[in-house]
């Protein structure tokens, strides 16, 4: 325990970067994922196909590989990149596929009769999506989306392997410096991750209960 308190500043430094990665990665993933989800429900077939290909390719590629592409391959193509920005991009892209799937499943969860009723009273496709389908889908999307963000929280640790000094990288430094106390140091790292993921899980549970009442 003592070793954790002694090294709180180092933990804190890493933790801040982890939070930053989570925030930027989450935002980026939401924007890209939202767009891809729209592609996937579009009435135009080729756009649907494009969305499906993107999702399949991205979500079936290991995150480490995505990192290699962004951090190693891009600079090699003279598109030089700071490793922190590289981590933002890699996390955003990788997570966006899961966000897109979560949103799409939410949209599919809205009974077809809702859209039929909306079209029947004369709403256009766009109005139907915006006024009727999405507001209902969002409620169902939140719990799976939070799952995605919990996974993202933990995935930020991959950035530690690509010279970004976040929580996991901090633990490596600390473990090297305190070779006899590796276990408490790693437990300390785990505690910091839990600090983010447990509240996220609680929010998900809360929203789930709220949605249950509405149905």
């Amino acid at each position, binding site marked *: 325990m003592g070793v954790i308190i002694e090294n709180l500043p180092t933990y804190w430094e890493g933790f801040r970067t982890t939070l930053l990665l989570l925030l930027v990665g989450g935002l980026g993933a939401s924007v890209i994922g939202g767009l891809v989800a729209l592609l996937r429900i579009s009435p135009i077939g080729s756009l649907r196909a494009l969305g499906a290909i993107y999702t399949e390719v991205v979500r079936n590629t290991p995150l480490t590989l995505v990192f290699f592409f962004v951090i190693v391959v891009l600079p090699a193509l003279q598109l030089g990149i700071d490793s922190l920005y590289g981590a933002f991009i890699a996390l955003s892209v990788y997570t966006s596929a899961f966000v897109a799937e979560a949103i799409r499943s939410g949209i599919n969860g809205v009974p077809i*009769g809702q859209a*039929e*009723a909306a079209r029947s*009273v*004369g709403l256009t496709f766009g*109005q139907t999506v915006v006024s*009727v389908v999405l507001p209902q889908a969002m409620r169902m999307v939140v719990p799976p989306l939070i799952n995605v963000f919990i996974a993202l929280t933990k995935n930020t640790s991959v950035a530690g392997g690509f010279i970004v000094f976040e929580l996991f990288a901090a633990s490596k430094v600390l473990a090297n410096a305190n070779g006899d106390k590796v276990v408490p140091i790693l437990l300390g790292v785990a505690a910091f991750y839990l600090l983010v993921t447990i509240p996220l899980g609680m929010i998900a549970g809360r929203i789930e209960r709220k949605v249950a009442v509405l149905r």
Partner: protein
Amino acid sequence: MVGVNKFFGDHQVLKDINLDVHKGEVVVIIGPSGSGKSTLCRSINRLETITSGEIYIDGVKLPEEGKELAKLRSDVGMVFQSFNLFSHKTVLENVTLAPIKVRKTSKEEANKRAMQLLERVGVAAHANKMPAQLSGGQQQRVAIARTLAMDPKVILLDEPTSALDPEMIKEVLDVMVELAKGGMTMIVVTHEMGFARSAGDRVVFMSEGLIVEEADPDEFFTNPQTDRAKDFLSKILTR
């Protein structure tokens, strides 16, 4: 409707349907399940696409997808078996959504009109509740009010009472009868023979995708012409 055919894969659900509905007429479509009644009803506002044939509403051919279709649908009301009220909106918002979004009516105007309609169908007291808080009969009456808010030229009702508890059927039928008496053009798919008899101007009997018989309700129920219709009536009327 001229020569309408519809296939689901190899299965033909509508076979060369010709049907003419006049303004102010109440046409009741009856027949056994799977006879194509609902498909016929849904094809009129293109919730089901047809394989061949032509459908005209008020002299205008049913358009393909797009803005034109949306405009046409705003003139053709639809009441579903499962109500399909927008579950995230209040009863009042359900009724005002389309007038505001499609007709660009002001919110005050739409609210005022919606309250009149809710009053008319007897659910004004529930205007600010969510649909899930209402009984099935109340929800279906809201759905009728939602349709009326667009001043449709014709209302399609696809088994409007089939999902209701017996004691709620009457309250919905009463609203429908009142509508029919008020001169609304209606196409009603139903199993409610009482409604067909009392409010229908014409009965269309369908079986296996064909219109088998078309007649005045009294005529049809007392003296059906075809064997298929006799058979159907004997099964439902002896109960």
